[in-house]
């Protein structure tokens, strides 16, 4: 089929970008959808033909990703987040408001095709909750009045101004903060190479290339006690050291920017305000393990971020910080930025690799681990965006100095995105081991409206909840684990005394059921069952025997699923039933004793 020239050029460029053509599939589908509004049979056939795939291979992949459509959406696709952080700040009411105002339901299109509506899962604007996206633009800190203005402007053909950067990332620095990787946040035009260079940019790369051997780089990262910022907290230096020195196959560096854990929005500002920091970190990692190619995998919803990262890559390449013979060292390294298309599961490292290879984001069997058999079957280092963004600082200041910023075994600083019922939701860089109580009360300004604290999600919605009397702990991997939860992704969500914990359990399960890839039985069926049961329970249809059953079903998933998504769904549920069982019992009286009950429209 004949394509418009720009799309034609984009397709050709995408196909040439990757070691295998199929990797271009998801980006091609996204760009095609951007142009035509949806993916028609004809487009699917065209894309299949260009990638030497069969139509089924394209259809299968398409069907997996929630952002890809087989039917047209409205010109303005309104996507309202109702996940935990937004829900706590009126996301649900906002969604209902849009429904009423536009007169359309979930995934429906207005008669004039001006608008379409979708209730979406966490979009990574937790510190700007409640938030929505219109097409790819973010609008945050909304209320019904602000929303009406936006809809009116769109109706009139005007484009309301989206948020310039992630809300909550820019604020006055508090004394408790320790900006290392976020120190350029707020510097004018911080994403440009020239500003980056004025602020210590690429000094670490120069040092790594000219003064250090690859082994020394790994050693330094080991000394820094830098642990994975994606959630699992695996020591980065150790991960790098698993990559075989000699490999017949090329090696890859992969930055995991599929930030989708509800409550988490710290990679987004790192990518939008400091992309060069990440590129520098990746290049150093490449040098350390002798890789020559890197990929940044960004979640599909962060489309504008892709453009920022791509611009940074072009700039870095032009200035010799990427490409061949970097800084005259003889070392070659280049980076491709890539996006997914709506799938939480693709944040799981092996599923991310499948996705980057243009397939459904199913996780892979391990062993072999990515360090040995990863992307394209090659040895691969995969780290979170924040982890890799930390590498330049580690090299610049030295591993030991960096480690000393934190606590033993928990080196350095990390970003916390604190959201929910606090006075100052925001993204703060704090040393590892910072007390949780101070994070809530001092950094985030305490619980909003003088309410009492009920619960805290320490690091994203997959963590077991902490109750108000469990917050006197240090925020480091080991201390939070000792308290029965996880430091996770740093997405701290604060829940006040009025919050209905049954509703929270219900909303969290909705997310995991929506995001379960469907590969393994316990997660696929368990999350769906629990979702239905929690819906019924919260709606007043609960039975006494449901309470232990919810707990048991969650435990029946726990530790038995293919990947950690099952655990992620089970752990918060188990903790809620355990700690707030009384609220479940209250619901048996037929009504929600807390906030008014809300029903998720349209199911998945």
């Amino acid at each position, binding site marked *: 089929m004949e394509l418009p020239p720009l799309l034609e050029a984009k397709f050709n460029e995408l196909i040439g970008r990757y070691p295998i053509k199929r990797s271009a599939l998801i980006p091609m589908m996204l760009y095609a959808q951007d142009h035509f509004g949806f993916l028609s049979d004809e487009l699917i056939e065209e894309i299949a033909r260009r990638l030497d795939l069969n139509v089924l291979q394209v259809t299968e992949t398409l069907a997996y990703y929630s952002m890809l459509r087989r039917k047209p959406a409205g010109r303005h696709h309104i996507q309202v987040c109702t996940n935990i952080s937004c829900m706590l700040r009126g996301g649900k009411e906002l969604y209902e408001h849009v429904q009423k105002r536009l007169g359309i339901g979930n995934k429906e299109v207005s008669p004039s095709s001006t608008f379409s509506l979708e209730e979406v899962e966490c979009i990574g604007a937790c510190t700007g909750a409640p938030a929505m996206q219109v097409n790819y633009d973010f609008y945050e800190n909304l209320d019904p009045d602000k929303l009406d203005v936006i809809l009116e402007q769109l109706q009139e053909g005007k484009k309301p101004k989206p948020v310039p950067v992630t809300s909550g990332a820019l604020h006055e620095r508090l004394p408790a903060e320790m900006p290392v990787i976020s120190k350029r946040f707020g510097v004018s035009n911080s994403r440009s190479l020239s500003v980056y260079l004025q602020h210590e940019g690429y000094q670490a790369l120069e040092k790594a290339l000219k003064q250090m051997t690859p082994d020394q780089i790994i050693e330094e990262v080991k000394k820094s006690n830098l642990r994975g910022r994606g959630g699992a907290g695996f020591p980065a230096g150790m991960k790098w050291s698993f990559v075989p020195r000699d490999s017949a196959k090329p090696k890859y560096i992969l930055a995991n920017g599929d930030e989708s854990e509800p409550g988490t929005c710290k990679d987004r500002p790192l990518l939008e305000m400091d992309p060069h920091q990440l590129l520098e970190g990746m290049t150093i990692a490449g040098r350390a393990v002798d890789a020559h190619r890197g990929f940044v995998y960004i979640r599909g919803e962060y489309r504008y971020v892709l453009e920022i990262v791509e611009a940074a890559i072009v700039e870095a390449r032009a200035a010799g910080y990427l490409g061949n013979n970097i800084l005259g060292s003889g070392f070659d390294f280049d980076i491709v930025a890539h996006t997914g298309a709506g799938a939480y599961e693709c944040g799981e490292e092996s599923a991310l690799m499948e996705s980057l290879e243009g397939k*459904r984001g199913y996780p892979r069997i391990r062993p072999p681990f990515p360090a040995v058999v990863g992307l394209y079957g090659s040895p691969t280092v995969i780290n979170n965006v924040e982890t890799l963004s930390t590498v330049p600082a580690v090299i610049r200041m030295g591993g030991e100095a960096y480690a000393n910023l934190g606590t033993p075994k928990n080196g350095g600083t990390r970003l916390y995105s604190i959201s929910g019922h606090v006075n100052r939701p925001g993204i703060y860089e704090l040393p590892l081991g910072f007390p949780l109580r101070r994070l809530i009360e001092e950094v985030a300004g305490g619980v909003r409206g003088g309410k009492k604290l009920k619960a805290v999600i320490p690091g994203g919605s997959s963590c077991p909840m902490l109750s108000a009397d469990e917050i006197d702990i240090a925020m480091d991997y080991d201390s939070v684990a000792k308290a029965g939860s996880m430091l996770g992704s740093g997405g701290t969500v604060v829940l006040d005394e009025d919050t209905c914990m049954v509703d929270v359990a219900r909303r969290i399960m909705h997310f995991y059921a929506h995001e379960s890839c*469907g590969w393994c*039985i316990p997660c696929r*069926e368990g999350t769906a069952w629990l979702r239905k*049961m929690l819906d019924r329970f919260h709606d007043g249809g609960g039975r006494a025997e449901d309470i232990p059953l919810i707990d048991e079903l969650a435990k029946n998933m726990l530790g*038995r699923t293919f990947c950690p998504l099952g655990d992620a769904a089970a752990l918060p549920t188990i903790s809620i039933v355990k700690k707030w069982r009384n609220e479940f019992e209250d619901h048996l009286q037929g009504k929600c004793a807390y906030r008014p009950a809300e029903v998720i429209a349209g199911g998945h």
Partner: protein
Amino acid sequence: MTDDKQIAFTINGQQVTTTPGTLVIEAAKRQGIEIPSFCYYPGLSLQAACRMCLVEVEKMPKLQTACTLVATDGMVVKTDTPGVHKARKDMLEFVLTNHPLDCPVCDKGGECELQDMTFRYGLDKSRFVEEKLHSPEEKWSPLVYYDAPRCILCFRCVRVCDEGMDVKALGVGARGVHSVILPNHSGQLACEECGMCIDICPVGALTSGTYRYQTRPWEMTYVSNPCAHCSDGCKTTLSVRNNEILRANNRDRSGINGEFLCAKGRFGFDFTANPERVRQPLVRRNGKLDPASWEDALEEVSRRLRQAHETHGPAALGVIGSNRTTNEENYLLNRFARAVLGTNNIDHHRTADYAGLAAALGPGARDSLATMADIYSAGAVLLVGNDVTNQNPLVAWQIRAAVRHHGARLYVLNGRPSKIHRQAKIVAEVSEGAERQALRWLVSEQGQFDSKTTEALVRLKAGLESESGVVVLFGADITGSAIRDLVSLAARFSGKAKFMALGDYANSRGASDMGLLPDRLPGYAPLSDTAERARFSKLWGAEIPAAPGLTARVMLEAAVAGKLKALYVVGANPVKTFGVADAGRIAGLDLLVVQDLFLTETAARADVVLPAASSYEKDGTLTNTAGEVQMTHRAMDPQGPRSDFDLIRILSHQLGMLGLGTPIRLRTPEAAFEEIRRHVAGYDLSMADLLAGGSEVAVATCRIHEPGYEPPAGEVFSSRDYLFTSGTLGRYCSKLISTEEAKEKPWSSSPSTQSWWQR
């Protein structure tokens, strides 16, 4: 203690010694310990998706999937603990939540893995009170239906279609609990319609268009027979109820084909019940074929044969045999022609030059014939000609498995496209029909090719020279001297080369082995071999003439020209096969007798038609193209028709009474097979395996090398059947030809006519 190559570990307290790399689930199975699983399937890629095989392993905090867990030295595995039992119960409870539990109306009921697992390991109650997901059943093709609610998403079907078949017609749609299996062509299947997905489905999600809602599995009897169609000899288990075949499959993997069956083996059984089946004898009276009694029809045949013999002599009589009748029947027919009628005018449609291979290998053939298993275990395979994907589906399956499972290298020399080329390391494409010249070039560098072809041939040769022990497969275009070229080419490679000639039909090789050839006796002895001729003359009680008879094609020409007066055609359709132009009766014949299932183009011209039983309706043995002999059994009563064995035998008796020849006193196929075992070179087989349903390799060998052997020109050719045709028989397989794919003829003229899913 273990030696270097073994590791020792413990399952449920039992010490197990095994080779490194063994999966715990396999090691346990060998130990007699069942670890349940849905998604694990030997031979297909690992999934770890169903989580049924969770086991406890000492020093590992979480339960482990035995299907991906490699046993290591000293590992301690437990499958019989409360934790493991609970995990199995829990998984089954989960998988049943959205399952419709419509077992009473499900085809799979009674042989369903989910039922069995639930019975053995599951809960006795359901705690799921929410609404189940539902979606309507989908018809993907006349042969394959999908019921999504029953699907447990084990992905076996997707994998067997992709990895096993290399068709890739199945995928997964949606996500999470809404995941479904998707066919490749807008809700329809465009594929080889092999039905492997149906057989491999552990539940009733994929059902067969021929079998669904027909019966319950326990109402049927099961008979395992070699497939009636191509020459690969797959075993297909016929499920029979009330004298009707309702299903054919191969879930017990007992044959040489393991679990494999193509569309013909799985769906091509309904010819037995085709309404066009001839069920009583027909005799031409006043120019019209009228029903007649067996007595009248057989009397008519014997009387008129005797008459023709008397009037015109034995040289005016001819016999054309079948590629589908059993070895016993072919042997009997040979004896009938040579010893009763006294003529060497006997032949059949030769679809591969088995005689040429026997002549080229000579007495050394015994260990030089490749079996189907040899293809699978081969390090390298050389394929010359044919589109095995379409013509020999089991051969293609074995090649794919060899490449996939142990990295075998496939080398191809071909003038036609074939999907199997996707598996090849090197394909030397030549122009159609130029394979012989290319072989000549490979042996002697004689002949001229364009530079591209020459370069491909050089690469092919170099590739082959790096191999040790090549299995060589070749099609009908490679005959006589070309086979000798191939044998001498293979002799230059290191290691033992083994050969397989690829013919068309279920007993193509058996027909040749049993000597349905005008110039050979059973076991490929040429008539000029006086000792052999004397031996068979003595055995059959009549002097076999020394002069070779007419070939099939020449017999037909002679019949048209009035030189041949009586022709007895058994299970063949020479009018179609050899293209007899004469539209009416074959002009010069006084008598045409046809023994067949249907009123074929030849039968329609006959004076007498004797309705015959198919190989699913009689006992005997069949020899596949590799020389593997298997027993076929009477799965049902043919209801009218008689076996060719009986008919030939009865005719010999009737002729004997009329004073022609000695009656054949072999009363049963078993007795005939005894004679074959004793007297046909290469058929001295052990009965033990055969009786147990296995196969034995017959190596019908020439006693001598025949350096100059060439088959008569134009007598060896393939019908070029493909996945949905099977010579004349295929036309009567209604289900098989009801598919859309059956309408497309692959490689009929140019590569572009190959079906898109096979390109």
